[in-house]
């Protein structure tokens, strides 16, 4: 892949800001759902859908496409919003999130919406599905890659460690894990609930190649995805350090925003903040 131009970075950051606005709008309309996680992963999902993935929004089942498995299904608003902005479906449909009859279920269901690839919500089983796809791809000699977005909190679950061990043992170099290392889970901070550190060393001990990035630095994340393609004989995991609720000062770093949506008044303030930031992003790159 060619090096990113400054203008392209600026475009991606602008797109991330638009996706954040959509996330706020859809959560307010839904009246329930998770806020901090989707906002914290917006830069990464923007990079994935607008730069990293080989995919076709007009042909979600495209032969040879890369697969993105979302393991922590509760942050699916960021995926829906990114997919809508990428052209999978109209952005307006995002407002049906969590509503009766919607294709945008509270937690993602593969059979409901083309392009979702898997069904998730109960934590800890996404990496297994991603590893299964990666192994099957390799059996068929496919050149495409599998990406698996995970939360840090779901690493409390044994199933993930089973999948890590299996993927490492099978040298699934076509698999890239992405951990949203935002240090929060529902009951509090991850290191208080069930310490995960040293996370890098744990993955390394399971025969993974480990990269750490600033999850809000889009070019850095894209570069890590590129590096992963050059690693043979091992799967790669990108530990992406993120700020939950990134982009909205009130939500950032406060775990209480993990599982609730903003109300209408809060949303108006948040959208204003995001729209103002759009101006800031433009000035920084001029």
């Amino acid at each position: 892949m060619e090096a990113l131009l400054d203008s392209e970075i600026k475009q991606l950051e602008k797109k991330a800001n638009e996706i954040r606005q959509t996330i706020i709008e859809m959560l307010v309309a839904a009246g329930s759902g998770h806020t901090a996680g989707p906002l914290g992963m917006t830069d990464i999902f923007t990079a994935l859908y607008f730069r990293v993935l080989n995919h076709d929004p007009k042909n979600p089942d495209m032969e040879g496409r890369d697969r993105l498995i979302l393991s922590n299904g509760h942050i699916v608003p960021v995926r829906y919003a990114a997919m809508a902005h990428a052209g999978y479906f109209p952005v307006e449909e995002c407002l049906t999130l969590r509503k009766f009859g919607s294709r945008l279920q509270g937690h993602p269901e593969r059979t409901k919406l083309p392009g979702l690839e898997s069904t998730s919500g109960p934590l800890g089983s996404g990496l297994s599905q991603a590893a299964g796809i990666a192994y099957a791809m390799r059996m068929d000699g496919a050149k495409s890659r599998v990406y698996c977005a995970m939360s840090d909190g779901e690493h409390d679950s044994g199933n993930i460690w089973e999948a890590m061990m299996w993927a490492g043992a099978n040298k699934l170099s076509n698999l890239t894990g992405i951990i949203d290392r935002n240090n929060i889970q529902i009951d509090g901070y991850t290191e208080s609930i069930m310490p995960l550190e040293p996370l890098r060393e744990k993955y390394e001990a399971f025969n993974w190649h480990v990269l750490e990035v600033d999850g809000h630095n889009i070019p850095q994340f894209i570069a890590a995805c590129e590096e992963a393609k050059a690693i043979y004989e091992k799967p790669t995991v990108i530990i992406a350090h993120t700020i939950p609720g990134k982009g909205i000062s009130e939500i950032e770093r406060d775990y209480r925003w993990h599982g609730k949506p903003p109300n209408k008044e809060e949303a108006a303030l948040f959208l204003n903040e995001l729209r103002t930031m759009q101006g800031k992003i433009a000035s920084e790159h001029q």
Partner: protein
Amino acid sequence: MLIPEMKLKVNIFGTPDMAATRDGFGAGLIEAAEKDPRIVALSADLTESTRVEAFQKKFPERFIEIGVAEQNMAALAAGFAEYGKIPFLTSYATFSPGRNNEQIRTTLSINNVHAIVCGMHAGVSVGPDGATHQALEDMGLMRMQPHMTVISPCDSEEARKATLAAAAGDGPFYLRFGREKTPVMTAADTPFKIGKANVLYRADSPVCAVFATGPLVHNALLAARELEKEGIRISVTNVHTIKPLDTETIVREAGSAGALVSVEEHQISGGLGSAIAELLVQTKPLPQEFIGVHDQFGQSGTPVELIEHYGMGVSHIVDAVKKAIARK
């Protein structure tokens, strides 16, 4: 009398051929894999006892070792199926679908992928291994999941056919197999269709209908013969598909007999008996007796000892038929 169209083996009341349903699965898996290159087999460190060993030898590149990790196996299978493979995931039924029930629910059933969960060592007839390894809840667990097809073959030949049918089907499947060698009743030309129960035996104007699943179908046939000697006329139906249930055959047989007995090597809650009761209470409520394990766990012993101890022997079926008739 035995229904001629069922083409049952002639020696089933004498010295029947003996084979384990898991062996029929092993043969069926290879046959299915020869026809369809998408088929892969996943093993959780039980390759020999789940009868996947021959597949492993024949198709080493399509055999996938998971290790002792049934939750991983179920979700991995979902990945294989999402990509377009047809995974058979194999272990003992107490572990799969026992331990990994949630992964099966989310990643196979809600996800609605074509994957086949194969649970071996079902029932108390596992024998000496004891309660931890004797699956008695698996049909209930799997039957409650939407999209799931549940099949419990009566012998090794039917197990082979069920394996082929599941491979050619769609959506998630649960296939239930036993460890022990049990009588082979059916032949290659015995009909087998998913969702179509087979009436194997029917006296003139039966006064009780027996519905059995799994290898206990043989005990039900032996009971029918005993009852025939006493002049008690019954029918015996092999309900190999627990879900979708053959409502037409069951309502017809039970309805004309006026009383029924369900026979299964499973807890009486959740399995075949429950499924039939749920059906009949909505269509034609009738006296029903339940042969199965009555809210207990198993224990170590020989298969015959355990089948008798838990009330699933021929004499128990005979008594249950009389009781059901008396309740008319």
